[in-house]
């Protein structure tokens, strides 16, 4: 055990100066790291290399999918990005329906789009809140979550649970839209439209926030395509790509909406893309409420199997679908399918391979945050240390979604 050096008598030529270069471990126990470790190699104030150490929240969703039934997988597959659960659910069900060969009625398609857009707004508000708290703006954090509360209440009225929705089943959706829910949605849209100018004054046009976000983490168009960015990160760099326009699913080919694309490619442009997408989603929701067709919300193939007494008691009075016994364990035919949806953070890909048994042979999920890992590491090179959290928040990287 070495003796502690006495400050007053020690020889000053032996003091070692702390080197300017060093490693910082922005680890799991840190207010600015989320559920992962960022290993940062610093030279003064400039980051030379930032390595992401992912895997803290790995829950083995893909392995568990080999030992569970198809219906059992619906709540499991939602859980990696639970705040975006409708999209995770929708992608899986689209792949399953391709294998089973089920056609979905129109009203169910519109309802799927409605729930997806509400969830997109809630997820963008969450992402903006997290970015705000990393920059130090605690009001942006609380307002993001407070405004999100309104949309979560709407989802609770529509699906029965706030976040863990489990709303979409093979063949359609579980619950129907009632006039009370329509009124709630209209009031929520009016409230959100009133809040957006307030957000602009205190957060988006605040010169402090602009200085933190402008010219931070700049990705040019070629770099964004080469590094594999998806979603609002890609659209903030000037690339026009959205799965809803290029490979439409679930009633998007019958709706009229625009995709916001910004030219600059820095963190501020990405935040603007998210805010403009909130406005576009509200326009889509208004169209859906006006144009939704009447009809069944479950495909005829399964609807015929429900006994008429149960149908009358639940579906005609409350608008709630009850499951026929088929759902308890069904065997889809042999086959494989790929489906893509545009989740709130980017493009989500599912690959499903079934071999005729009640459990799938292989399920593969590629989540948008997983693709952001490489983008994060490339953008952090050469940035200042305080920009690390600004880049993290502007990419809207969600660690459990990347780890699955």
């Amino acid at each position, binding site marked *: 055990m070495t003796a502690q050096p006495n400050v007053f008598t020690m020889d000053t030529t032996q003091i070692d100066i702390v080197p300017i270069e060093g490693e910082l471990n922005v680890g799991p126990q840190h207010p600015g790291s989320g559920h992962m470790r960022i290993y940062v190699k610093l030279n003064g104030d400039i980051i030379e290399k930032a390595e992401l150490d992912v895997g803290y929240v790995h829950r083995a969703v893909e392995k568990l999918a080999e030992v569970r039934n198809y219906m*059992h997988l619906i709540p499991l597959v939602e859980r990696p990005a639970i705040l975006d659960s409708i999209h995770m659910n929708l992608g899986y069900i689209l792949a399953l329906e391709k294998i089973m060969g089920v056609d979905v009625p129109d009203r169910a398609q519109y309802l799927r789009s409605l729930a997806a857009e509400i969830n997109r707004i809630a997820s963008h508000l969450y992402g903006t809140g997290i970015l705000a708290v990393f920059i130090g703006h605690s009001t942006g954090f609380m307002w993001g979550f407070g405004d999100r509360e309104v949309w979560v*209440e709407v989802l*609770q009225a529509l699906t029965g*649970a706030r976040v863990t929705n489990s709303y979409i089943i093979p063949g359609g959706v579980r*619950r129907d839209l009632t006039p009370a829910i329509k009124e709630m949605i209209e009031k929520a849209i*009016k409230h959100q439209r009133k809040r957006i100018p307030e957000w602009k004054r205190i957060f988006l046009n605040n010169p402090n926030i602009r200085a933190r976000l402008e010219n931070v983490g700049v990705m040019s168009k070629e770099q964004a395509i080469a590094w594999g960015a998806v979603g609002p990160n890609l659209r903030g760099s000037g690339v026009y790509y959205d799965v809803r326009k290029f490979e439409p699913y679930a009633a998007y080919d019958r709706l009229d909406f625009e995709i916001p694309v910004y030219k600059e490619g820095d963190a501020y442009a990405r935040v603007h893309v998210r805010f403009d997408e909130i406005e576009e989603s509200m326009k889509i929701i208004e169209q859906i409420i006006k144009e939704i067709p009447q009809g069944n919300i479950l495909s005829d193939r399964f609807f015929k199997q429900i006994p008429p007494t149960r149908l009358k008691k639940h579906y005609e009075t409350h608008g709630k679908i009850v499951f026929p*016994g088929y759902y308890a364990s069904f065997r889809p035919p042999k086959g494989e399918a790929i489906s893509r949806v545009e989740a709130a953070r980017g493009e989500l890909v599912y690959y499903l391979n079934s071999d005729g048994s009640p459990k799938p042979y292989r399920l593969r999920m590629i989540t948008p945050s997983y693709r952001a890992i490489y983008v994060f590491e490339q953008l952090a090179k050469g940035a200042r240390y305080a920009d690390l959290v600004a880049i993290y928040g502007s990419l809207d990287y969600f660690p459990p979604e990347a780890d699955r």
Partner: protein
Amino acid sequence: MDQVKIREYDKNKNPFRLFGAHVAAIGEGIKHAIKPKTITLKYPDVSMTLPTNYRGMIRLYKDVCIGCSLCAMICPADAMKMTTWEGKKLPQINYGRCVFCGFCVDVCPVDALKETRVHDAAFQSRRELVFNPDKFNQDFDQTLPVKGTVRKVRAVIDENKGIRYVPDE
């Protein structure tokens, strides 16, 4: 591909406009400090009743159940298991595993399972989380251990404030 309009945000470098933006941000903060839009629910003095189709804790009707075990087959988390209870085959539930997805309620062919609106329940040991069919049969009604009466409110979406709480009978 239709013609796409690439947008740009406006970059103002004028120092007077910057000063004006600072003043606007501080003014917005002062406006909210004077007239706040609080959405806090002061639980547990005030407790919220949830809407009617909320997926809360589940209740079994023992006499109606026919023992088909569809609920145990469809449960995603293996929370429902069938046991033999007084000669009949009845489900028991383990609330430590239940994810409140509502599949079992939807699939029961005789409507023996029903959802209650209770979302906050507390137990004192892990063993109490497993409900045998008799306990499962009881009406789930927990009172909050609070002095005085608890006001019940309902959440209503309001255009100006976001969420407002109106009293519920």
